[in-house]
């Protein structure tokens, strides 16, 4: 029987989530969840309904959990909600920018929303467009962008206020392989300076760039370690699996173990 493994939290956690619980009606979607996050890319994996989006929304303060605490960069969201919001940014899974707007105009508006001072907005927009390599599309209407470009705009808007915690909810969902690689590179790069949480239900999107993998199942963390540790866990199971990677095998095994409990 495999037991969940935990890594020790960093010496100075940027994000501390403690005792987070949330229900939708009678369904418990986050179950007394505690974790610490530091800089780097943390992959958040789990099947649909595991609680990934709910956890990200709680950390982004979009959702008020039934119980639990969230501290980001020293700011407690219960005491200073706006202080936390200054430090956290979410690139939501459902991103529907106004089709008629131009990229730069939309980002300028979101820079206002994210609290970027007026004088700094133009520079902030130029910077994030550069980061996501869309400078040449600044004047394009959002409707004219490809799916991958729209996802990059989604990530760009989240970067506008230099967040300490960047939450990316399934940013590679629905993208073709070339765009997935581009987004992976971008997220990998962002992880050098920011605490990034990248959620996906596809292991291949997470493993190459994550410094750490959190696996959620039914609102609980069932695995918390490095991608290599996850791979090792699954290595012995590969033979039995039908064409699965070690990580996918481990993922399935962990789910099976939890489900059997």
């Amino acid at each position: 029987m495999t037991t969940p493994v935990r890594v020790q939290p960093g010496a100075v956690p940027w994000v501390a989530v403690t005792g987070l619980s949330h229900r939708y009606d009678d369904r418990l979607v986050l179950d007394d969840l505690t974790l610490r996050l530091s800089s780097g890319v943390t992959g958040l994996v789990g099947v649909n309904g595991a609680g990934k989006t709910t956890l990200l929304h709680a950390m982004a303060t979009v959702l008020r959990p039934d119980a639990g605490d969230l501290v980001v960069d020293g700011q407690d969201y219960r005491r200073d909600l706006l202080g936390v919001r200054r430090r956290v940014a979410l690139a939501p899974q459902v991103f529907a920018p106004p089709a008629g707007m131009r990229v730069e105009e939309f980002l300028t508006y979101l820079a206002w929303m994210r609290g970027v001072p007026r004088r700094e907005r133009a520079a902030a927009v130029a910077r994030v467009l550069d980061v996501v390599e869309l400078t040449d599309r600044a004047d394009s209407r959002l409707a004219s962008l490809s799916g991958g470009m729209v996802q990059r705009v989604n990530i760009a808007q989240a970067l506008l206020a230099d967040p300490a915690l960047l939450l990316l909810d399934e940013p590679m969902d629905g993208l073709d392989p070339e765009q997935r690689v581009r987004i992976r590179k971008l997220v990998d790069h962002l992880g050098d300076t920011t605490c990034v949480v990248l959620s996906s239900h596809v292991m291949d999107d997470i493993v190459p760039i994550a410094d750490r993998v959190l696996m959620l199942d039914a609102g609980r963390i069932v695995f918390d370690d490095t991608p290599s540790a996850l791979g090792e866990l699954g290595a012995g199971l590969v033979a039995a699996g039908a064409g699965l990677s070690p990580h996918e095998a481990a993922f399935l095994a962990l789910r099976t173990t939890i489900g059997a409990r």
Partner: protein
Amino acid sequence: MTTTVRRAAAVLVVVVGLEVLVVAGHGTPWRGEWNWTLDHLVGTTVLTGPAVGAFAAWLAAGERSRATLNDGAFRGWMVPARMAAVAALTGLAGFALGLVAGLLATATVPHGGPFAGWFLAIVPLLLACYAALGAIAGHLWPQRIVVVLVAPALFLLGTAAALGIGPNVLRQGPTTGSLAGTTWDAGVVAFQELCLLGVTLAALVVPAVLLGVAPKVARGVLAGALALAVVGVAGLEVGGDYSFVSSGERPSACAERAPRVCLAPSHRRSLGPVAGQLQRVGAVLADAGAAVPATYVEEIPGYRGSPGSGLVILPAHANVDRYPLFAASHAIALPAPCPAWSAEKPPPESAFAARELIASWVQTRLGNDQPPVFSPEAGAWLRSAPAATQQDWVVAAFDALRSCRLDQIRLPWDE
């Protein structure tokens, strides 16, 4: 041009169109009264306000499709306020265009009267309130049907006072007829503005309360805003919501003719036609031997004329640049501002009838063979009584009216 500016420009066209609709519905021909101009321009908010509210609702509802993005953002709670601001500023831009056009139109015709420019301060508050209510409706219920219903709902809200539900706050004009001699009651307007401010602030702070942003502060602001609105409503309930008081305007715009005619400066545009017609009908009476007063002054709210002068009462719906013979013949038959005309106990019926008969007689002398008459006896008398008899009676009755001996007047067939 940004998307917001493009949208606002489209709505601006609608706003200006609605302004034209309101003013054209009430304001042809242009009166030349400054306060009437202000009243009609502010009165355009009766339609432009709900339109601005619907625009705000549409913008705010559109933002709810990005609720996940907005709700966790630093200024996410301010999004409805920003949408309301865009809508209100669009409405205000339309109002500014209308204001310039209205003031120019007034300046280009004979004009006058008091100019209560301070009353314009209510416009930003009105538009902000309509926009805030629309934005919060679109924010809370971001369905297309809500956006569609916002404009009629806000329009009905504005008419609630007319149906006896609460004091009037949202509906400011346009007033039917002239506003000469009147201006806005600063106390009533202040209470209305307080109410508008309170409702606007309350609506705009609701998202902060719902999103848990600075909960104590947000709830405090909400309570304070509602308190402002309650104070405003209470002030209007206690003191009344009738917005007009006497402006102190006097009939000082005069035409040096015989008789001399003085109207309120607000009615300067009517001075030529009124003086011309009074000169015409006055000459008939003077030729008959009646002692026509040297001066006729207009009766306006707060001013009932001076002893020795006749009274001119301009019909509320009179055309500003045409004064009918019918009106002039009745005006000339009011040669003194007798207190009895407005006393609690009215003068005898014969006094009113005498005025009517004099007016009809003047019209027959000016070629109208069938003037309107108030009784069969009057018609028969005008047709069959000898001319000299008619003239003697008219001179005597006119003298009695001028000296306010109203109870001594006898109609010809009563003698």
